[in-house]
């Protein structure tokens, strides 16, 4: 219990604290006064018995916001408090009306050290005053934290950032959502997935706190039953979650939709996708050669995330195609893999270019596979220009592609081209479509130079029983 009397908290790095030093000496002449110093045990000079609070423990317990702060305790309870220098307020607390007569009436104080973010986080952890409830894993004195994460099976094969309490607490500052909020049950283990668990995995992936709302929304999207995460993991095919970000948040957090948008080099692109995969692994138990039965997998399973170039494109963004208003901050997840490049340097009309797009789409996985897996077509700026100059918007492109993906069954039947794979002979006489009606999404990304678009192929032809793309608005 706090002893009755006065308590003052000061720091040397505060001109007001220096200014009130004679006042503190005046008070000591007539009252019980404890003085705590935040930064320098030798300050204030000339006063005996100053208490060293460089640990900031007392300051934190007293919830000091400004120095100097003067508090009066009576019967163990705080009964009055003032901060900065205010002669009238100090006089009222001390019970004297002639304090510091040679000082100005008022001078504001400075921010208390215990409120500075680094110190505050450390103090909250020291006093277990955080929202985190996850198990704390102690490491041995000689144990390297990065190696410890590998040994515990928490890594995707690359070093992870060790999820210390300080880092996770800082990560949670990136969202207004409660750490304890349950986002859902994560397949395959169906373990409870909370904001806190996602934040831990986001730390490990290397995310900055401002990425967390995007990661959380992507996690909610992959846990949506339409995405069929258990199947996406358990399949022997290539796929993993591909995360496409729309809206101004992408630029605000520094994502890359320009040159090398699907490649390396951008922290947000690289770590958001990685955080999703680490959460699937660690919370859901989706580990390679465990529940994840992929024959080959694909490099994007370390993380596959990019954003659409909305500002650079004349087209409506993907969010509009997915039924949300233009400009919505949103995440779309798609069970996809890799990138099949589309090169066309010669097309000068939409009619020429669409033939290239269609020919490449027909080849996805196997030219005899009908229907093929759902696809995302990533159109580069130069190709978009060719289409726009020819008067084609995105809806027209979509319709023209779908119309051209029809082929007679005989052309892709088993045995054709010397291949055993193909459609069954019973399909003879029918016209088949490479993609199901909802099997194509189109987005715009890439550098301003280069006539190179791409196809991100998916798992299977979309159906309610299998994985469907899921789009969710981002909650900050």
């Amino acid at each position: 219990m706090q002893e009755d009397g006065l308590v003052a908290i000061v720091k040397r790095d505060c001109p007001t604290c220096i200014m009130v030093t004679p006042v503190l000496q005046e008070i000591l002449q007539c009252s019980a006064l404890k003085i705590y110093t935040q930064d320098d045990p030798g300050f204030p000079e000339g006063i005996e018995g100053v208490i060293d609070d460089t640990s900031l423990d007392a300051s934190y317990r007293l919830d000091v916001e400004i120095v100097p702060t003067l508090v009066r305790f009576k019967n163990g309870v705080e009964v009055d408090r003032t901060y900065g220098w205010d002669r009238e307020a100090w006089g009222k607390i001390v019970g004297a009306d002639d304090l510091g007569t040679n000082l100005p009436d008022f001078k504001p104080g400075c921010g208390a050290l215990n409120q500075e973010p680094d110190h505050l986080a450390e103090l909250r952890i020291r006093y277990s005053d955080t929202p985190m409830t996850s198990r704390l894993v102690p490491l041995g004195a000689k144990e390297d934290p990065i190696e410890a994460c590998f040994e515990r099976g928490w890594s995707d094969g690359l070093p992870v950032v060790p999820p210390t309490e300080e880092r996770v607490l800082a990560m949670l500052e990136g969202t207004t959502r409660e750490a304890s909020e349950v986002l859902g049950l994560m397949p395959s283990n169906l373990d409870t997935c909370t904001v806190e668990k996602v934040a831990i995995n986001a730390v490990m992936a290397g995310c900055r706190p401002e990425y967390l709302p995007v990661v959380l929304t992507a996690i909610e999207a992959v846990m949506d039953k339409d995405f069929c995460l258990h199947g996406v993991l358990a399949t022997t095919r290539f796929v993993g979650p591909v995360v496409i970000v729309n809206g101004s948040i992408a630029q605000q957090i520094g994502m890359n939709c320009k040159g090398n948008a699907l490649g390396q080099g951008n922290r947000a692109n690289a770590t958001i996708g990685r955080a999703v995969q680490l959460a699937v692994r660690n919370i859901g138990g989706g580990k390679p050669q465990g529940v994840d039965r992929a024959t080959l997998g694909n490099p994007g399973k370390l993380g596959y995330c990019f954003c659409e170039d909305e500002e650079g494109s004349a087209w409506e963004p993907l969010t509009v195609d997915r039924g949300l208003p233009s400009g919505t901050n949103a995440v779309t997840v798609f069970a996809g893999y890799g990138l099949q490049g589309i090169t066309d340097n010669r097309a000068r009309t939409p009619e020429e270019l669409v033939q290239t797009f269609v020919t490449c789409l027909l080849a996805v996985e196997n030219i005899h596979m009908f229907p093929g897996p759902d696809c995302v077509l990533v159109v580069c700026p130069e190709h978009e220009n060719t289409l726009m100059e020819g008067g084609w918007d995105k809806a027209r492109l979509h319709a023209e592609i779908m119309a051209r993906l029809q082929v007679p069954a005989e052309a892709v039947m088993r045995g054709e081209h010397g291949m055993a794979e193909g459609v069954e002979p019973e399909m003879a006489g029918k016209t088949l479509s490479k993609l199901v009606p909802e099997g194509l999404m189109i987005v715009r990304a890439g550098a301003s130079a280069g006539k190179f678009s791409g196809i991100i192929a998916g798992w299977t032809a979309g159906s309610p029983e299998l994985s469907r793309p899921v789009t969710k608005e981002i909650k900050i």
Partner: protein
Amino acid sequence: MTLLLDPTGERETVGVPRRARPESLAGLTVGILDISKVRGDVFLEQVATLLEERDINVKRYCKPTAGRTAPKDIEQAIVEEVDVLVEGLAD
């Protein structure tokens, strides 16, 4: 001492030991579960036929899709109705 926050679901998976193989299938009911993988039906139907030729009671089940876990009613029916299950997992 360094402390790390556990990134996992923190739930221990309960291992269920596999039931001992029967010495003989005589008098038992064998379930055949087709998970809708390509040509799984062809293979499993031959297994079922071979069992039936040996006067073994066979019950057939089929998952609607290989892409999702089995519906609960199918899981429950298998638990209640058969002694042994043959399941085709791969292509």
